[in-house]
């Protein structure tokens, strides 16, 4: 990802420094850095990481300070050490894995079903207008509805077992997946479809060879956004009615007045979603090899 920020903006300084006779191989920019330190710092991964780590360390330091010195009462904000303690205990007892696996299973089942349902449907409404006309009213009505509003009905119909959590995830994600897929399908360059037909492609081949790969990049971007939404759905559902999972974990901790555990639960949710994101990025690279030069 070569972004603009990574390029040194203030390199003019390098131009005024004369050639260094004894260090021929040394790049000029480094020579400058001895005199004008900050100007020629490059945003290399190491430097970026270093800055990130120090900002986290500073934050933790301030947090530890205000809690240890008693400036903030532990019931309002527990100290980072007690949160870490809880984390260690969660790992030792194995509760962490049980919760992570319970929530992840629900997300991936609900999300997976939504993908299987909404991606083909999205392509269909993108290429065949009657399907769009049929779906439009439902999309308009369902899209503004937060998935949490499905909780009462889903409990009535499905009880409070796994199916109900999965249903909440499904209801919270499929409309978005459908819309992203539809939009991406619409954005496929019509000249490519013409070209394919001109080369004897039939309707089915146009779908398989042009529309689907053309929309894929947009669909996957949409899935990455929707996956985060799925996670918030499952956490909500677990907070309302469940006896395991990360959402249940922090809700129960709240009932017990165990604030460090609440915070640790939040950290775990964050980390789990990050890992899920990372997996999606891997899948994206695998599925979109032709975008390899855009990524470097």
């Amino acid at each position, binding site marked *: 990802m070569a972004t603009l920020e990574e390029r040194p903006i203030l390199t003019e300084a390098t131009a005024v420094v004369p050639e260094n006779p004894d260090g021929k191989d040394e790049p000029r920019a480094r020579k400058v850095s001895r005199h004008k330190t900050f100007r020629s710092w490059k945003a290399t991964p190491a430097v970026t990481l270093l800055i990130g780590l120090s900002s986290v360390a500073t934050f933790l330091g301030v947090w530890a300070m205000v809690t240890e010195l008693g400036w903030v009462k532990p019931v309002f904000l527990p100290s980072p050490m007690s949160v870490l303690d809880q984390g260690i205990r969660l790992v030792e007892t194995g509760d962490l894995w049980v919760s992570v696996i319970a929530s992840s299973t629900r997300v991936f089942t609900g999300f997976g079903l939504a993908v299987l349902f909404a991606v083909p449907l999205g392509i269909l409404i993108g290429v065949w207008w009657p399907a769009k006309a049929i779906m439009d009213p439902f999309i308009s009505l369902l899209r503004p509805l937060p998935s949490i509003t499905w909780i009462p009905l889903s409990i009535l119909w499905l009880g409070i077992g796994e199916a109900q959590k999965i249903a909440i995830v499904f209801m919270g994600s499929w409309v978005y997946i459908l819309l992203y897929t539809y939009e991406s399908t619409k954005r496929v360059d019509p000249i490519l479809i013409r070209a394919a037909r*001109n*080369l004897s492609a039939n309707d089915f081949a146009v779908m398989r060879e042009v529309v689907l790969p053309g929309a894929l990049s947009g669909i996957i971007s949409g899935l990455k956004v929707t996956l985060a939404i799925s996670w918030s759905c499952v956490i909500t559902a677990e907070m309302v009615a469940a006896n395991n999972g990360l959402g249940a974990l922090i809700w129960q901790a709240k009932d017990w007045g165990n604030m460090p555990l609440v915070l640790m639960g939040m950290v775990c949710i964050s980390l789990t979603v990050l890992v899920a994101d990372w997996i999606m990025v891997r899948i994206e690279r695998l599925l979109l090899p032709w975008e390899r030069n855009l990524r470097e």
Partner: protein
Amino acid sequence: MKDVKNKASILSAQNVFKSYKISGQKDILAVEDLSLDINEGEFICIVGASGCGKSTLLNMFAGFISPTSGRLLLHGEPIVGIEPRCGMVFQSYALLPWKTVRGNVEFGLKMKGVSPKVRRERAEYFIDLVNLGAFADRYPSELSGGMRQRVTLARIFASDPEVLLMDEPFAALDAMTRQVLQEELLRIHEDQRKTTVFITHNIDEALVLADRIIVLSSRPGRVKAIVKNTLARPRHMTVQLSKEFTELKSEIWSFVEDEVRRHGSVTPEYP
């Protein structure tokens, strides 16, 4: 009911009008009362000012758009819908970004159900022909503009349609590559005698390649003049040094100049 007069012509346009509608604006008449007969095996070059309707005409022959009135015929039958027998080389390449050079060149053959082995061989041959052997496994986004253009040529030659429609296929190329590909196209044409309609801005190019050169008037496009190219075949690039070439060139230029002068570059419909 077929026209007796058109018996030999593989492709023809009869009193074709095409106007584009843009909501909230005046219609743009792109092609006006254009009639043209193209014979089997003929190489036609179309020249004319920018925006005079050349691409529009070619798009109608390919069946991408339909005329507002008039008829377009292939083998005496109306062209309805996209016509795979008229293979198009697009001005804007239109390569599939998710397919490698090889995948793009093989595409037409794959769609026709040619076996993987045969289509690989044929693709290989045409990829080498346009000098892209080392890039066969690259994606279009990893190629230069001229290289992409060469892929479109390999793709159309490999898929081997009955008629070649080429919309300024050499416009993005450097002078040397252009010359090499002109020679190649000339050789292939003299070999296969495939009917070709070729759009260019370059009169030299038209004279090297064509049997007949159609000069279109500035928009709306009408046939301004049809110049028969009397230069002998087989032709070679050195034909450009002959006296006959210079005479033909100035003849064509006089028609083109006329049109450019008459209309200038200002198009009144565009604010």
